[in-house]
């Protein structure tokens, strides 16, 4: 489904963030990207989201080369991905319902579909009863659930989460990871960049460890090694 082929990325500053990375993530996989800060995890995420282009190598999604995809096509690629950030990135002046509906409105979905899909996504994350509340009325965990609902509402084939539990206490972090696990069980490919050692160890999923821009290890049911 996702193929990184000999990917290297050197920024304009001259820093090489990733070097000769090759990996494949299959449809339905649940993969953790782990490693210390600055190891290249975020660069790989950005490459996948087409925020940046690799200096060398090729990226394929479903067999299609997206390495030098025209800028006008990037929005359509991103519609196949749901994205969750560490800082939730919710719009504070919109309700929970409106935040989730926002992801559908901006891709010009029709109102009928929005009315059908948004409650579904909210019930999946257990927040249908809080649809009319504003983000600042919710706990951190609940806000991250809203972000997950927003990422899922357009039925993406993969969900990309960059440090989704970084701002949460351990119990809430575990709740979010369980939610991501449930989503994965429903068939969505999930890629998570994280520092959460306990969660990685406990979940026994594929662990891709990156160190100084290269893949240090790639274990199917791995744990945090450092």
């Amino acid at each position, binding site marked *: 489904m996702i193929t990184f082929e000999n990917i290297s990325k050197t920024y304009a500053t001259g820093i090489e963030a990733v070097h000769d990375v090759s990996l494949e993530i299959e449809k339905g996989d649940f993969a953790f990207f782990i490693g210390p800060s600055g190891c290249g995890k975020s660069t790989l995420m950005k490459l996948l989201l087409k925020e940046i282009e690799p200096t060398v190598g090729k990226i394929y999604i479903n067999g299609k080369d997206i390495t030098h995809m025209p800028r006008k096509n990037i929005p359509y690629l991103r519609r196949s991905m749901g994205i969750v950030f560490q800082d939730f990135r919710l719009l504070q002046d919109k309700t929970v319902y409106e935040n989730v509906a926002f992801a559908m409105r*901006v891709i010009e979905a029709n109102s009928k579909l929005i009315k059908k899909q948004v409650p579904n996504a909210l019930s999946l994350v257990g927040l249908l009863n809080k649809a009319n509340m504003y983000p600042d009325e919710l706990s951190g965990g609940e806000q991250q659930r809203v972000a997950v609902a927003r990422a899922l509402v357009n039925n993406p084939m993969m969900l990309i989460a960059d440090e989704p539990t970084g701002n949460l206490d351990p119990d809430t972090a575990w709740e979010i990871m369980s939610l991501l696990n449930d989503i994965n069980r429903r068939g969505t490919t999930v890629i998570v960049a994280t520092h959460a050692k306990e969660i990685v160890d406990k979940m026994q999923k594929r662990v891709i460890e990156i160190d100084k821009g290269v893949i240090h290890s790639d274990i199917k049911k791995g744990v945090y090694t450092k």
Partner: protein
Amino acid sequence: MNFNTIGYWILESIEGIKKNKKTFFIGLGTMFFMLTLIGGLYIIYLNANSFMGDVSESESKVEIFVNDVTEDDVTIILSKLYQIDGISDIEYVTAEQNYEDAKALGLAEAISVEDNAFHPSFKLTIDNVKNGNISPIRNAIHGIPELYEKIHSEKGFETTETVIKWAITVRVVTWTLLIIFILIGCFIMMNSIKLALYSRRKEISIMKYVGATDRFTKAPFIIEGLIIAILAACITLIVTRLVYGGLAEFAEANKMFSFVVPVNEVLGSMSILLFVVAVGIGTIGSSMSISKYLDV
């Protein structure tokens, strides 16, 4: 694109204005100021043209006074004058006739025709003086040796040339200032929209991450820019109607400045100019400012 989307854009633009009222009013005020300057310039341009039109019409007749010419000379000169493009009518006036004309106007009572104070002349009517063709015609006239060596004096050329020079200067200055003001307007609009964008940069970044196209992301901000610009154009037209209308009516009532263009005539063409400029500034200014925020 569907009606839902257009409705969403309009609602988002109105929301954007509500959220940034201060920025909106600053943008509206500065755009109004800018469009008032543009409108003011346009009014000056129209009135200057009207004035030039009046003057150049009355001064399109020039007269060349000559020293003694024989009948043969007159025939040759007339035939050569008729060959010059741009001269629509030529009349030869004898010294006696000039004396009679002056007497009729009460200008020659103390002088008799025998005093030799009057000269025969050629009265010429020149076409399209506004187009600036006076100098080539003057040069062509001076190129007739039978006439040139006998010229005593000329009347009308200098005034017409001055009027044409002023008309051209007013035109060039007006258009230059118009372009400068339009560029300043774009700059103001860019800054207004930049402030709106800054306060909504998080929203834009989320939009881009969930797959919004550039067109979709830009639209509410462009509509916001258009609302500001069109509203400013409407206010400018209302103020023009009141202020210029009052002045023009006063001038008409007091029979002052016959060249003053009536307010309805001004508003007709000015509304087209201001709306074109406003839509241009609103669209270009807001489009230019948003581009850098779309690079997510």
